[in-house]
């Protein structure tokens, strides 16, 4: 287990060591994407983070292109 995962589990166990079983509602797949200038600026920043965290995603994309 990675250190991050371990930390997450500790946090998730805020309920006295019990694993919380939330009633989960998921974001629908057909939502309308945010195309506003703010969202674009935000996603530009997020892409830099993602490239740093998951370089393999972008390498695979490059290879496909």
């Amino acid at each position: 287990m990675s250190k991050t995962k371990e930390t997450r589990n500790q946090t998730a166990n805020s309920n006295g060591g019990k694993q919380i079983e939330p009633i989960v509602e998921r974001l629908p797949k057909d939502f309308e994407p945010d195309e506003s200038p703010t969202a674009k600026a935000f996603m530009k920043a997020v892409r830099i983070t993602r490239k740093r965290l998951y370089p393999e995603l972008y390498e695979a994309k490059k290879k496909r292109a």
Partner: protein
Amino acid sequence: MPKFLPDTNIIQSKIFATRNPPSKLFYSTVVFGELMTACNDTKELKSYQDAWKLADKNELLVVPIKEDWLEASRIQFLLAQDRKKDAGGKSLRRTAKVKQELALDCLIALSAYRENITVITNDNDFWAIQRYLKKLKLLKF
């Protein structure tokens, strides 16, 4: 139109890379703070600073107010009491990082709740918080 606010763990997750965020998106100053703290270089930091400024200009920033801090403290206290009760009187010691993350999650949750915004997150802490903030809207990504 429903309003959404992405939590830090969603933005940093691999799954977020494959789907664009939904409309209408709001931005937490707490999430921005967490993202900027984790930046690797000034280019990344500046991109978030630019997005912050634009979100502020367009009134899309969600900022915790003093009442949120007060309520966040109450919720953290209640969660700590739960932990103690479940552990038979003395709960396991948590690291400063874990405590800080929960405190920030409480602030994100409370400020979003006050503005009637749905938090998009995969972090179970938010469902623990929801036990004491029943009307908090949450969605998994």
